[in-house]
């Protein structure tokens, strides 16, 4: 039995990070390091207008004056920002008008990723004559595929265009919709907001851009898959989503990364703007390479995500399932400016082995009758350490502001940690702020009960943890929820016994 067990264990370890492969594609990179010339190189590569280059340079100069934050609980060796590449683009024929012009290697990569939705078909099927307009269950997801730093393919553009929806890479938006980009870029996350956001503002390479016009309900889920594929390439996506008056959009972001020994820096910025009566639902499944069991390698995920509920009655809902990365530093937030605006944050964060996560949200109540809801489920296993850090701030004019926060932590094993750091600042006496927190372990009774019914230990843990996260997972769009459940199980393999 011992021999069988060790074989099984070996195989499992080999499979543990099944997305750990590398695609061999010729890459055009900028020289290592970051300086004004590199930023000019990036801007030139992307054929950007002068105003964009100026914006980047301004951010870069600001960045030089900032210091890396140190208040978070996560620990990592100092990052040498001059030792990374800031631009890498897969070489391809200029301006692919369709997917069959795209390097088949890229498509192969998506296949290997086992992208579970029907994106693979969509990616392959776009050129299929007459097919794109046939609505079916699987085609309700539009994909903007980001490979390394450049957006290589955008599908279903036509269908979206009919509705007036703009869904493209941010690079394209800079070329084709400069008025929107100029108006909103940096309006939610200013250049100097924080060290990593500032770095992103200087050297972001690509990302997604979405504009939903007035009164339009986006007819499909918008989806992006990110993937880091070049050694030492910092990945700096920039995403900007604008929902104009009375519009609705649901956006999905998911990612996997190949296995690496070197630490990879990932500092994205996501800005959401919701105008009058608009609603944005932003869902993330994050599965960056978490490093090996001893904490070697793995992605540093330093992300700034923020939404401005600018219009009255606007609503933003963040849902995140965070299972990857060596280090996660991420606080998707809502600025509730408009009266009656609503911000919601649903989070599942799983840390195993040596992973560290410092994540949570900020809800800033500015308008009257604004309300926010925070449901955070943290699961820590192995020697991992996790912190929920949240801020609920009620400003003096936010009459009748409401907040409900629930933070639950689940510990697996005795070497992991979970911390909850909620900040509450209320400057309006009519505000009602509630905070509930629990910390628990998977009980022996539960494990034995499941195993007595025939479930093996890992299955049992997966089931119990999925139950623990249910309130959050069920806020995900259907297809994503199924994928997320599987991911929860994979992330905790080997965490018990």
């Amino acid at each position, binding site marked *: *039995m011992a021999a069988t067990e060790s074989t099984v264990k070996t195989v499992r370890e080999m499979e543990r990070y099944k997305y750990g492969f590398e695609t061999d594609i010729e890459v055009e990179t900028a020289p290592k390091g970051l300086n004004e010339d590199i930023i000019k190189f990036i801007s030139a590569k992307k054929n950007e207008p002068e105003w964009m280059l100026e914006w980047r340079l301004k951010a870069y100069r600001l960045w030089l004056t900032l210091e890396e934050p140190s208040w978070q609980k996560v620990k990592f060796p100092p990052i040498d920002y001059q030792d990374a590449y800031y631009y890498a683009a897969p070489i391809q024929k200029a301006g692919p008008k369709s997917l069959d012009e795209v390097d088949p290697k890229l498509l192969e990569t998506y296949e290997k990723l086992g992208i579970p939705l029907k994106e693979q078909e969509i990616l392959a099927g776009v050129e299929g004559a007459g097919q794109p307009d046939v609505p079916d269950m699987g085609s309700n997801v539009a994909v903007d595929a980001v490979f390394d730093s450049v957006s290589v393919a955008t599908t279903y553009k036509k269908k979206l265009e009919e509705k007036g929806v703009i869904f493209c890479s941010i690079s394209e938006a800079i070329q084709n919709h400069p008025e929107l980009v100029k108006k909103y870029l940096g309006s939610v996350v200013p250049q100097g907001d924080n060290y990593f956001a500032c770095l992103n503002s200087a050297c972001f390479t690509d990302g997604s851009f979405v504009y939903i016009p007035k009164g339009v309900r986006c007819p499909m889920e918008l989806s992006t898959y990110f993937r880091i594929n070049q050694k030492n390439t910092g990945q700096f996506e920039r995403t900007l989503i604008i929902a104009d008056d009375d519009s609705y959009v649901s956006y999905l972001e998911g990612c996997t990364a190949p296995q690496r020994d070197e630490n990879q820096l990932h500092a994205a910025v996501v800005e959401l703007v919701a105008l009058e009566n608009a609603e944005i639902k932003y869902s993330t499944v994050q599965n960056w390479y978490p490093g090996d069991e001893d904490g070697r390698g793995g992605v540093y995920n330093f992300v700034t995500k923020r939404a401005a509920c600018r219009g009255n009655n606007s609503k933003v809902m963040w849902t995140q399932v965070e299972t990857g990365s060596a280090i996660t530093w991420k606080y998707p937030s809502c600025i509730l400016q408009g009266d009656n605006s609503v911000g919601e944050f649903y989070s599942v964060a799983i840390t195993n082995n040596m992973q560290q996560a410092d994540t949570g949200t900020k809800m800033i109540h500015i308008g009257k009758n604004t309300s926010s809801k925070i449901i955070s489920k943290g699961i820590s296993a192995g020697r991992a350490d996790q912190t929920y850090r949240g801020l609920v701030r009620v400003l003096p004019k936010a009459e009748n502001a409401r907040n409900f926060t629930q933070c639950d932590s689940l510990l697996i094993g005795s070497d992991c940690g979970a911390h909850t750091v909620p900040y509450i600042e209320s400057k309006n006496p009519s505000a009602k702020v509630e905070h509930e927190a629990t910390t628990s372990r998977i*009980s*022996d*009774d*539960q494990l*034995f*009960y*499941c*195993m*007595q*019914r*025939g*479930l*093996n*230990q890992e*299955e*049992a843990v997966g*089931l*119990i943890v*999925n*139950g*623990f*996260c*249910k*309130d959050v997972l069920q806020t995900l769009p259907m297809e994503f929820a199924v994928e997320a459940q599987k991911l929860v199980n994979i992330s905790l393999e080997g965490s018990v016994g």
Partner: protein
Amino acid sequence: MKNMAPLIEIKDLHASVDGKEIIKGLSLTINAGEVHALMGPNGAGKSTLSAVVAGREGYEVTGGQVLLNGKDIADMEADERAVAGIFLAFQYPVEIPGVGTTTFLKAAINARRRARGEGEIEPMEFLKLLRAKQKELDIPDEMIKRPVNMGYSGGEKKRAETLQMSMLEPAFCILDETDSGLDIDALKVVSDGVNAMRSPDRGFLVITHYQRLLNYIVPDYVHVFAGGRIVKSGGKELALELEEKGYAEFTEQAA
């Protein structure tokens, strides 16, 4: 293909919890088709016995053997024993927040199918089976929709255990104090469910403190369990005798 070995054979079993010996030389043979009742005072080690047979961690077998169809199960994990046919109906069924009852049942059924090299159960087949068993045990849909054992009354929990047992079709069932916390109506429903499962291929060990349950689930054999071992065995009439005299004489005997 019929296995000639007894369904369950417990040979001079000794078991400890936290270094303290609870089971002190217990022997018991149960053949397929038989229902055995194990009766004893509180603290005799009845629940320890069920945990040991089911393979719960922390229960150390210090001597003797448990054989299932002639095969020693000492090296089998709890889930392997379950899949091999041992089912334990818990005295206190455990709540699992957020996990749907049907999800749980499906996972349990599929674990068995996987062990047999079969694919997962078809949703329609599962639903049909569930509906039929629900009807037998008078379990409303509303109960099934809740997470595993969440918010169930004592009676509902035991009905749910019986439902699981009935769906998983185990070869050997241990009912651990199934009558505790049951009113008379619930006791009837649960007993009917168990009786419906009696078959020449299946054996039962009914662990109870009171004779009452045995009016409904009539055993073939009754054993008195005291001081960590079986001190007297007999037919169903032994249960009545116990009800009358109490356990005093046996606890003295065991001590």
